[in-house]
């Protein structure tokens, strides 16, 4: 270790002396308040964790339940859909002829065709949100 570092540490040690004294006093106070050692249990080989064990029995279930509730709430917030599905009105479904009529009458501004398991779905944004037809009919 170089000299400036040594000096820095020595200076700190000197300046810390009053606090070290306080630390020692606190240590002695803690030592004077030490609980009893269960000598009989140690010698009999039956020593068990005592005070914390009792507390763990009391607090662990409550702690686990609280943490689970917090996790559930966090997960619900994270995975909640932007808009609840039940708030949307049900989508009307039209036959191909009705859909064609509306398209020809220029009443549909945008048409999206989706194929799903043998059917073709036509999804629009106005004025009818969605129509469906059999595959091959269009």
């Amino acid at each position: 270790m170089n000299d400036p570092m040594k000096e820095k540490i020595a200076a700190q040690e000197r300046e810390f002396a009053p606090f070290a004294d306080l630390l020692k006093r606190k240590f002695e106070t803690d030592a004077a308040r030490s609980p009893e050692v269960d000598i009989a249990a140690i010698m009999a080989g039956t020593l068990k964790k005592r005070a914390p064990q009792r507390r763990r029995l009391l607090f662990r279930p409550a702690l686990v339940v609280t943490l689970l509730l917090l996790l559930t709430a966090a997960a619900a917030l994270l995975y909640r859909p932007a808009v609840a599905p039940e708030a949307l009105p049900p989508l009307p479904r039209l036959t191909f002829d009705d859909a064609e009529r509306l398209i020809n009458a220029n009443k549909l501004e945008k048409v999206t065709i989706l194929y799903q398991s043998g059917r073709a779905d036509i999804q629009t944004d106005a004025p009818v949100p969605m129509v469906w037809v059999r595959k091959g009919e269009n």
Partner: protein
Amino acid sequence: MDSSTFDRLVKETKGWVFATAYHILRSRAEAEDVMQETFLALYTHYDTLDSKEAVYRWLKTVAVNKSLNAAQRNIFVELEDFVAERVFSTPDDGGERSVYADQMMERLQEGLDRLSPEHRAILLMREIEGLSYEDIAGKMKCGIGTVMSRLFYARQNIRKFLERKNR
């Protein structure tokens, strides 16, 4: 080991063992556990120690190591102890100590709470036990440079914290 020898050893050293564990763990319940475990270990290892000095040295090392191990236990225990100590503890009988001394001790406790168990252990070995940097490095299984930097950090933090609180 016979009962009276063990009883005498416990009476002589339990305060020190408890205070060591409490200094590192900052939890009376955990410190009490470590104290009991340390004396249980002493009871089983006593025959391997050949002198009173060896017993004291062994106790000091085991108390520190067990406390550091206990500090690494899971978060449940720490949370439970935190709740139990803050919510359900009753104030100790402090005797005739002055209000100022009580305040200083309380602030020191707060300052120690802000350090890691490793920093508290090194502070204890240097400031209370008066061990050399080399001895501390040997006990903590780390380099002398690490001991010095941890000690520097611990002292600086305690001092700054107490000075800020005393303003």
